[in-house]
């Protein structure tokens, strides 16, 4: 967990992704700006439907943006050539280790495929595949010839990571990498990822709905709500001192594994609105316990809320409006 602040690996600038949906256009990602630094463990947290997976897919060019740009080390991505380069340098692993691996391919073929796609010299294949498997803690002699159905969930996820790492990328986007795994397997997989981060400076971008996990592992966290980043900052700041009412509600809702749990608490009512019908003004205002006068009119930008670069998209932190908010209570 080092904050190697030596420049951005990827930059997302004012990115929007839209889908045609029943009832209109779903604005899945709606103006997101995010910097992912080299070697950094960055967390993107939010509920399902908040747009965090769509953001990750757009970052790898798996869905095309409606507006805005994705940059790799300052160069915008356009055309097939830049996508090939991007995917050599930034890879992705997905949530479900049962669906990501082809059932008809052996582990060897699965892990070799990225090398073939990227045109790596054939002579290098075997050594690199073996090294990738060893890196994720699988003995090549035992696993090269197996099919996915002969593997446990944890082993499958390791194979998926090996296939992502065989190109020796600089960044790995992990979309809920452990949410389907048991506590003990989960820790094993996360340990593999963090070890690679430490040893090789591999940047990790964790997409997760698990706040305690993000808090424990990430350098920085961005909180998404309805396609927008509503709060961002150091993991410790965002989770221990959340400034946006939504983040505060999320943190309160986390079940606490201690005797008596988290005690009594105020819960958010209702559910995430539809992305085809994003509320006017602040998109969180219909559910916000602390809304005041201008919230249904003004769409708040990210406002600095203190040290360490913590920002929150909430009018409570607008100095001009803060007085008014106090008056309301």
């Amino acid at each position: 967990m080092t904050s190697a602040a030596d420049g951005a690996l990827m930059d997302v600038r004012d990115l929007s992704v839209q889908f045609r949906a029943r009832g209109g256009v779903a604005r899945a990602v709606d103006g997101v700006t995010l910097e992912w630094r080299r070697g950094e463990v960055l967390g993107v947290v939010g509920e399902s439907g908040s747009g965090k997976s769509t953001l990750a897919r757009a970052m790898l060019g798996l869905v095309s943006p409606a507006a805005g740009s994705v940059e790799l080390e300052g160069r915008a991505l356009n055309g097939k050539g830049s996508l090939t380069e991007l995917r050599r340098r930034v890879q992705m692993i997905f949530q479900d280790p049962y669906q990501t691996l082809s059932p008809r391919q052996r582990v060897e073929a699965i892990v070799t495929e990225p090398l073939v796609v990227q045109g790596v010299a054939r002579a290098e294949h075997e050594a690199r595949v073996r090294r990738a498997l060893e890196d994720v803690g699988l003995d090549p002699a035992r696993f090269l010839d197996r099919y996915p159905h002969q593997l446990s969930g944890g082993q499958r996820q390791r194979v998926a990571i090996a296939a992502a790492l065989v190109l020796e990328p600089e960044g790995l986007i992990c979309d809920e990498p452990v949410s389907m795994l048991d506590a003990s397997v989960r820790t094993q997989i996360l340990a593999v990822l963090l070890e690679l981060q430490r040893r090789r400076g591999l940047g990790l971008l964790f997409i997760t709905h698990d706040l305690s996990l993000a808090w424990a592992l990430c350098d920085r966290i961005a909180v998404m709500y309805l396609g927008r980043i509503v709060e961002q900052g150091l993991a410790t700041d965002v989770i221990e001192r959340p400034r946006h009412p939504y983040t505060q509600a999320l943190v309160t809702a986390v079940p606490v594994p201690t005797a008596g749990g988290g005690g009594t608490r105020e819960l958010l009512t209702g559910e995430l609105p539809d992305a085809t019908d994003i509320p006017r003004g602040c998109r969180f205002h219909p559910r916000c316990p602390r809304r005041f006068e201008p919230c249904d009119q003004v769409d708040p930008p990210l406002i600095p809320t203190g040290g360490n670069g913590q920002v929150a998209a909430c009018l409570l932190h607008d100095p001009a409006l803060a007085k008014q908010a106090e008056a309301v209570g």
Partner: protein
Amino acid sequence: MSALLEVEGLRVTYRGDPIVDGVDFSLTPGEAVGLAGESGCGKTTTALALMKLLPSSLKQSGVITLRPPEVSEPINIGKRTEAGMRLVRWRHVSLVFQGAMNSLDPVQRVDAQIAEAIRLHESVSGKEVRERIAELLATVGLTPALGHRYAHQLSGGQRQRMMIALALACRPSLVIADEPTTALDVVIQAQVLQLLERLRERLGLALILISHDLGVLAETCDRIAIMYAGRIVEIGQVSSVFDAPQHPYTKRLLDSLPLIGGRRGLGDPIPGGPPDPGEMPDGCRFRPAARTPPSGVCLIRPCARRPRATARRVTSRPGRSGRPPRPRRRWAHDLGR
């Protein structure tokens, strides 16, 4: 107070291999007990065995006694036939499954499913059924209009509320909830847990809550049982299990959870995985995974149950491979049939 449910020596085997291997516990009326453990430890199998819903390839034995307050004679579930169980399911004990999408009938409106459960157990007029449904929906915080929808027209949180309404339709004294919030987001999960807690208070409902998420159990339960490889390895009041876990497995499990405000970073992973049902090791079952035998005792004879029921016992049986089949899917409202 006499126990509402008593489970003694519950065993479930698949081709002779134990999936659940001697589970004992009891539940007083209105009490909430959590069953925790990793996938494959037997917690769902235990729940299905309590309702006798296991597929026929799994054999169950042991004594399960249910004493609902509204019935004078205790119900011996182990001896009940399928026809006899239909009178028990939904009426006295009901089950809320993990994936509400998969347990509601996709081609029937949800209120019709609730009506069916009520009519199967009670002869009541149509008007009464409609009133009951409206009351049930209000209890779980849903508007009556949502009752006319199909399952796919509801959100995940609404479906799980609907499942809870269905489970309460015949006013059972015990609800078994198997991972009721696992597929839900953290905010919706907190809402559903709060609902379960309120229902317990209001209706005096007893609850068996199954989850791999220890946080969820800590929030909701009075007592908690930790299962490992088909057995309860530790059971006690939530406060004592969480504050002073006695079994090494419970300790490792608690250590592996990130706790906001606690130590950041990763806990030590528990190496390896639990043993397969056909290949249970001699001695303590947890030892091979932990690779830290506390003493030679675990290898040669059963650990006695300690005061807080820290049980480690020996089974020694020749292994046979083969995984148990997954339980057949049924729609929730079929279970009363």
